[in-house]
């Protein structure tokens, strides 16, 4: 397995990544006075050009360039390869610059490029240290840099952005227009368009803090939680069924979804949000909320009929570990399941140490029992007590009744006796029992029976019990965890205990023996505490990057689930650390943080391109302008309901079922199975409430890049394909909503065609249409009537359909 070939190909990957990154991000090289970053700029050169003779496998001349000690030390030749601070005395530089054949390094291939040599020199001048990958280092506390155009800076974020722009000789784009700004802010925070009234109010508000008022209003909107919950649900691979043959439902999965929405709307601190999901049942005082949060562990795929049960069990745990590491830490620990991580310093041991934290969890269930390990009762204590009392009474009555019954049964014929052991028991008892009992016994039986009936009635009058999807019946003393050789659970190796990845140099994990009668092992709270500790090197960086990603259109780190060395380096590492520190200092409060992002001048820039920017930084690595984006699948569907006037703002509760056409349902082995029927009003609720069935994703969502449900999604695709056009033109949903849209216009804008077109465009595009737009719409309606013999209503409907298909409707400036 670990043949030279395999290893070689992995080494090759690194430099190539850099070639490409150079291509993606031409401005990423450090400015002249900055120290090059070892892992980003230097290590790739060493790996690519030097390691084959001076690396982990070979040390020709005594030199290993994967090891600082060797490089800083005296070599066999007496030279020093890297003399910190002194490039001119470093053999490494002398040798790569040498013109002599046999002297020059590397001996094969092209010499190093001048810019590569310059990087090496600068790195040595700055100390020539073998430093940890940036994300694995403790967070710095950078101060906002000095800038010359101080007038542009509204808050420290802008200083970080502007400093880089000024260095690159670029100017930030001018401020966005008010319409673009309110649309951007409203969509980004709530996932919905602003209403024409909200736009008008903002346009008319000439006060200094008009925009701030909008941001404050939006942060209070309950739609904020609905929209941002969906971002989180992508990351934790939320779905409400198990996949595989039966793709059976996960009862009460929607309560986890509601928990996320509520947590965000309540502005729950992020560290608490994480602790509740990872260890809500192990907190000192578990709450209904924190138990519901542990539904996190129950969201993954689960095979109720596994071919290899042991492997399936480890796959289930792998799903949890992979998601946890990527979601909270931006680490691809999953790569170390079968062997040491090829790129990051994560040995296979780390994988199983981390896995050990979850060993107290039971599997989701078995085919015969699909609830008892994943449903916790959270009814009010009084109700739980009432149920317990009723049940105790039921049990005692049933026992007494059976005793009396038995007295009769033993006197019955063999045939009748047999029947009492089958489903026919009640029938036999009803017909025959009295005949085999004496009068006293019968009276006693009748009394019992009456009482049993009373208890049954009592029970039926109790409020229903409430259950949540969660972890439950955990194992306080989990069985040992072993390293599985090559990831094969049938070949256990050495035993390991819970522990954090070694690269963090964390203190060893100490978990006290659970007390007698403890319900859980207490391991997950230790993990949660470590992840949410303010000085965890990744947690804060990872979450601020996600918040930035969904506000600015891309993360500062473009691979939000992978902060490792194979991920994409941050375009603004200093800013990222400043933001992370800022979040932690602000008590992990997300709303305050959002406001800060949105109040920056960077956020308020126009998305308009200009020649200098497009030429020098076409990928917008430096944020010289705002990024345009297409609405997400849910945003498109919600916006359609919003403009058609049907959006139902009802929040929370069990999932809804939009109509799915028979042609699509025909793909199921039992068409329609597992898909309910919702009223038209219910269907017009926000898309976050749509039941997520793994094998049957609602077509309009699937068409517009709803994420794969079975593993964590860090960033959605935004594809453009003809099936989207077909669905938006001919699909039943688009047609139906266009008709509702037309009815709304007729209702709200009177008979005048121009007024109708005006209203339609205000609703859909959030702006005041110009004359050219009005003429366009009126012209289309007239032509449909004249040339195609449509009546007024039909023509208006077709016009509405086209409005819903406009690029301007789907894209944000």
């Amino acid at each position, binding site marked *: 397995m670990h043949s030279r070939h395999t290893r070689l190909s992995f080494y090759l990957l690194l430099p190539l990544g850099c070639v490409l990154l150079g291509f993606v991000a031409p401005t990423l090289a450090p400015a002249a006075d900055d120290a090059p970053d070892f892992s980003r700029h230097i290590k790739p050169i060493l790996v690519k050009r030097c390691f084959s003779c001076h690396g982990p496998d070979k040390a020709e001349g005594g030199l290993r360039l994967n090891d600082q000690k060797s490089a800083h030390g005296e070599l066999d030749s007496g030279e020093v390869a890297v003399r910190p601070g002194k490039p001119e005395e470093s053999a490494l530089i002398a040798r790569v610059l040498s013109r002599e054949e046999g002297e020059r390094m590397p001996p094969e291939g092209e010499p190093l490029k001048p810019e590569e040599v310059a990087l090496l020199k600068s790195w040595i001048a700055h100390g020539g240290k073998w430093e940890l990958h940036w994300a694995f280092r403790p967070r710095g506390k950078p101060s906002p840099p000095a800038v010359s155009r101080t007038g542009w800076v509204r808050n420290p974020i802008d200083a970080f952005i502007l400093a880089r722009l000024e260095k690159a000789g670029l100017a930030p784009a001018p401020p966005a227009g008010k319409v673009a700004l309110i649309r951007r802010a409203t969509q980004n925070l709530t996932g919905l368009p602003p209403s024409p009234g909200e736009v008008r109010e903002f346009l008319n508000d000439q006060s200094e803090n008009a925009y701030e008022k909008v941001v404050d209003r939006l942060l209070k909107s309950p739609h904020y939680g609905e929209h941002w919950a969906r971002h989180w649900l992508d990351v934790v691979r939320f779905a409400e069924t198990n996949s595989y043959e039966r793709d059976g439902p996960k009862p009460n999965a929607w309560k986890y979804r509601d928990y996320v929405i509520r947590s965000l709307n309540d502005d729950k601190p992020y560290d608490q949000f994480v602790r509740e999901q990872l260890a809500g049942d192990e907190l000192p005082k578990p709450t209904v909320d924190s138990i519901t949060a542990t539904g996190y562990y129950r969201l993954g795929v689960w095979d109720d*009929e596994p071919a290899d049960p042991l492997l399936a069990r480890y796959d289930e745990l792998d799903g949890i570990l992979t998601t946890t590491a990527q979601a909270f830490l931006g680490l691809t620990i999953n790569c170390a399941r079968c062997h040491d991580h090829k790129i990051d310093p994560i040995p296979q041991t780390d994988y199983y140490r981390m896995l050990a934290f979850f060993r107290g969890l039971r599997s989701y269930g078995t085919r015969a029992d699909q609830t008892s390990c994943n449903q916790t009762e959270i009814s009010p204590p009084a109700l739980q007590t009432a149920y317990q009392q009723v049940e105790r009474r039921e049990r005692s009555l049933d026992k007494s009744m059976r005793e009396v019954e038995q007295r009769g049964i033993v006197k019955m014929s063999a045939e009748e006796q047999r029947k009492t052991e089958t489903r026919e028991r009640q029938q036999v008892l009803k017909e025959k029992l009295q005949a085999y009992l004496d009068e006293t016994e019968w009276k006693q039986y009748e009394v019992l029976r009456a009482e049993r009936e009373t208890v049954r009635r009592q029970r039926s009058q109790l409020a229903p019990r409430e259950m949540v999807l969660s972890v439950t019946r955990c194992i306080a003393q989990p069985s040992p965890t072993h390293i599985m050789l090559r990831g094969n659970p049938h070949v256990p190796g050495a035993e390991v205990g819970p522990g954090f990845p070694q690269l963090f140099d964390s203190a060893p994990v100490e978990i006290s023996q659970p007390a007698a009668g403890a319900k859980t092992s207490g391991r997950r709270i230790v993990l949660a505490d470590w992840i949410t500790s303010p000085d965890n090197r990744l947690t804060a960086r990872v979450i601020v990057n996600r918040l930035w990603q969904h506000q600015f*259109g891309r993360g500062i780190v*473009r691979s*939000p689930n992978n902060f490792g060395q194979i991920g994409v380096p941050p375009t603004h590492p200093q800013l990222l650390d400043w933001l992370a520190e800022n979040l932690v200092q602000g008590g992990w409060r997300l709303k305050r943080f959002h406001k800060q992002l949105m109040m920056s001048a960077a956020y308020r820039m126009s998305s308009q391109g200009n020649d200098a920017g497009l030429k020098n930084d076409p990928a917008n690595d430096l944020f010289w302008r705002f990024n345009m*984006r297409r609405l997400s699948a849910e945003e498109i569907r919600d916006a359609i309901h919003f403009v058609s006037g049907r959006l139902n703002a009802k929040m929370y509760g069990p999932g809804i079922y939009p109509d799915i056409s028979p042609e699509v349902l025909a793909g199921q082995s039992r068409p329609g199975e597992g898909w309910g029927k919702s009223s038209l009003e219910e269907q017009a609720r926000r898309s976050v409430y749509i039941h997520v069935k793994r094998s049957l994703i609602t077509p309009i969502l699937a068409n517009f890049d709803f994420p794969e449900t079975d*593993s964590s999604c860090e960033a959605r695709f935004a594809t453009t394909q003809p099936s989207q056009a077909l669905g938006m033109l001919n699909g039943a949903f688009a047609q139906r909503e266009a008709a509702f849209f037309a009815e709304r216009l007729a209702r709200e804008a009177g008979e005048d065609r121009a007024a109708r077109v005006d209203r339609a465009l205000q609703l859909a595009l959030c702006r005041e249409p110009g004359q050219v737009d009005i003429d366009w719409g009126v012209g289309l309606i007239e032509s449909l009537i004249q040339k195609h013999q449509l009546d007024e209503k039909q023509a208006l409907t077709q016009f509405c359909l086209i409005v819903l298909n406009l690029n301007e409707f789907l894209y944000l400036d």
Partner: protein
Amino acid sequence: MTPRRTKRTGASFCRRTRREFLWQAGGGFTSVALASMLSQDGFLASQAVAADGTSAFENPLAVKPPHFAPKAKSVIFLFMYGGPSHVDTFDYKPKLFELDGQTIPVKTKGRGGSRNEGRVVGPKWKFKQYGQSGQWISDLFPHLATCADDIAFLKSMTADSPIHGSAMLQMNSGKILSGSPALGSWLNYGLGTVNQNLPGFVVMLDPSGGPISGAKNWSSGYMPATYQGTTMRSKGAPIIDLKPPRGVSRVMQRELLDALMAQNNRHLAGRVDNSDLAARVASYELAYQMQEHAPEAADLGQESPETIRSYGIDDPRTEDFGRRCLLARRLVQRGVRFIQMYSGGSHNDKNWDAHGDLVMNHNLHAGATDQPIAALLKDLKRQGLLDETLVIWGGEFGRQPVAEYANGTGRDHNSYGFTMWAAGGGIRGGVSVGATDELGSAAVERPLHVKHLHATILHLMGLNPNSLSYFYGGLDQKLVGVEPIEPIREII
């Protein structure tokens, strides 16, 4: 340095195009980034022109060069859902006839769990040798038997699961875990499609319903939705949402699209650096063309009465599968990359899952498919298409030599050994690879795994199965998994 490296440089990274690399790397499809990326490909220029509605749409399905010269250009995968019994179809086991009814020790694992003995159910159909190659084929397939010399049998297939759900996923995506891209997605990702007016990955379902797990079987998994399978029907509107609603004529739709384009172009002015906007305009034109081309492709009325008859479309028993086979040939002619057809759908005896009455079940499903499949092979050959069309036949697993229940002929699932076959597209006909034991209970000679089949398909299509990869979750994901897998050379 190494060939592998050469392949990775230039326009692709881990066999991803630059666009996909950006999707992966960039918090979604960052339009601004694309502007720069694509302008270097000349993409932007063509897209900007596409806004005029005359230029071609360029999408991620654009044709990409294979790793090496391919033998086949298209694949037709005839999926016998439910698991056909190999010992009753192509894997001739004389010994089983003798043992009929006897209880013997044999290790099996199926839906009913693991067992160590069972009552042998003798094969219910006679076997004969056919063609110059003398291949054994049972009486279930009188028509197919006439194609024996074109077929290569894989008689030692194995899979990791004897349970429908996970075994289907493995046959379709290489993994028993849910969430990975299907074979058809991999091919379209690797090669693109030559006909932009039709989907590159077509799935045709049985009228009784889809297979279990439904759309999971043709999902693009962690790849963009661009590569997912499109279900296509041989009756009515062939593709979902293809047909404009009642009252919307083609002329009228043209006018609607023109209006849409006019307004979109106004929006585009001042945003010309955003290639997404232009691409979206162009995608409407492609949709418009698909409305014309897809029904034309699906119009079997253009075929001669002899052709119709040869596929059995005039016989109620074979009509449906015959229509689909004929449609498959028409799609291959039009450059569709991967077509999958399900024989059987829904549950139990609606597919090949013969737990109860083997005779009834297999007569039904073989009867519905034998003539159409033979007609397809002959038709492809006649049209000169067989050489470049790889036809695969098989289910997610086979069936056990012993009975599942105390009474009856039903057989439980068997993933330890089963038979699949391949024809056309660079396959050497008239050969047979591997063997099961004398009972047909497990592969013993040259055991083949689903991965070998996948590797063979990719190889024949000009892709190196061990280097076709997609970066996801920190890993270079491959259809055939981490370990290098060789294609089945004996049949190439």
